[in-house]
């Protein structure tokens, strides 16, 4: 981001940028930067806190009043979504227990369909209330959720199912986009649950990766793709084969499976 500031300011437009990783901004030295202490993905702080977001924005805009630079200031307030609020959050939506370690592939597939189905009304309510959804990058629609779930369950089980009809990109990029859509579906539904405060992203990741069957399925797919890539690399004399590497489906923070689902 700081590099972009250099290029645009050099053309005669005054710039001020949000800094997410202070150590990078210190080295790049853009003209004006405001470092914020929020998690990656939330440059203006938490959702549904408009006054807080506007305060960040005003602090950023105030940097245009400086007479010389480079300027790197720290935003002085922490996010109002605290670690304590995160710890207090839990998903109350009724999902089948995620204890399918070692269960037959068909049982897992059925449980996954039930899980996604249980989330459907909450996802629909989220779309109704917010008037938007971030689902759709893959080209598929939520009408195809059963097909998508079936595809992912079979992939996790070691089968080679045909991709769902609606996907607009070739594999493996399509897999990355459709998994992103599934995450949007789950998380938008979970954030619509009654009576809950909005958690931070890390808490939501923990729920998705460690507490849902879909999370377990994504670990299974990741491990399958990694094993296949390793086998192809070995067969290629130790050099990775041509083409893109397997798509990364799991956040680095949650690279480890939950202990209960190791299998």
């Amino acid at each position, binding site marked *: 981001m700081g590099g972009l500031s250099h290029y645009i300011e050099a*053309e005669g437009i005054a710039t001020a940028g949000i800094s997410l990783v202070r150590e990078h901004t210190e080295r790049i030295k853009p*003209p*004006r930067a405001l470092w914020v*202490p929020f*998690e990656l993905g939330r440059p203006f702080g938490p959702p549904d806190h408009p006054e807080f977001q506007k305060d960040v924005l005003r602090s950023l805009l105030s940097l245009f009043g400086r007479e010389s630079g480079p300027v790197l200031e720290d935003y002085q307030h922490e996010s109002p979504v605290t670690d304590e609020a995160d710890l207090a959050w839990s998903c109350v939506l009724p999902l089948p227990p995620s204890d399918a370690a070692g269960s037959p592939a068909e049982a897992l597939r059925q449980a996954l369909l039930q899980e996604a189905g249980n989330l459907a009304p909450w996802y629909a309510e989220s779309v109704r209330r917010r*008037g938007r959804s*971030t689902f759709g990058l893959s080209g598929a629609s939520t009408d195809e959720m059963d097909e998508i779930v079936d595809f992912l369950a079979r992939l996790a089980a070691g089968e080679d199912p045909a991709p769902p009809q609606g996907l607009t990109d070739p594999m493996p990029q399509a897999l990355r986009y459709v998994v992103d859509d599934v995450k949007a579906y789950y998380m*938008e539904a979970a954030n619509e649950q009654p009576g809950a405060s909005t958690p931070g992203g890390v808490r939501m990741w923990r729920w998705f990766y460690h507490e849902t069957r879909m999370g377990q399925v994504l670990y299974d797919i990741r491990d399958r793709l990694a094993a296949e890539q390793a086998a192809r690399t070995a067969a290629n004399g130790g050099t990775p084969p041509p083409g893109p590497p397997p798509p990364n489906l799991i956040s680095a923070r949650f690279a480890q499976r939950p202990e209960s689902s190791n299998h």
Partner: protein
Amino acid sequence: MVRLSSLPPEYAESLRNLPVPDFGPTPWVPGPDLSTARVAIVSTAGLHRSTDPKFAGGSGDYRLLPADLDYSDLVQSHVSVNFDRTGFQQDVGVVFPLEHLKKMARDGEIGSVAQWHYSFMGATDPTRMVDTAPEVARLLKEDGVTAAILVPV
């Protein structure tokens, strides 16, 4: 929190060791008086309208976002697994504060809001924007923009 100490050690280390190009001396344009400033957003969140081409990883091109953007048509093809997406899912203002800027313009805190805003891909070597960023700067000038806020994700 984006404090490297709060991230998983391996991820923090990869961020800490990320090569950073040398951009040379910091350019400086005197900032405008906010009450008359025309403000635009330049995002690196990989945002675009659903009808636009998706961003390819590491690409230096950009997409246009109009001031009358239909938020139900806004998607994000920056699909890194290592930043929170739930904030943007719930509230566009977390990453793209266009409505806040419009309110500030109505209240006289800033002069006006640009007609066009711009979006690049995140997690991209900025040197790949060496040609496209000046192009965006020229478009900003044509729009009368005097202050650009740059927003990563």
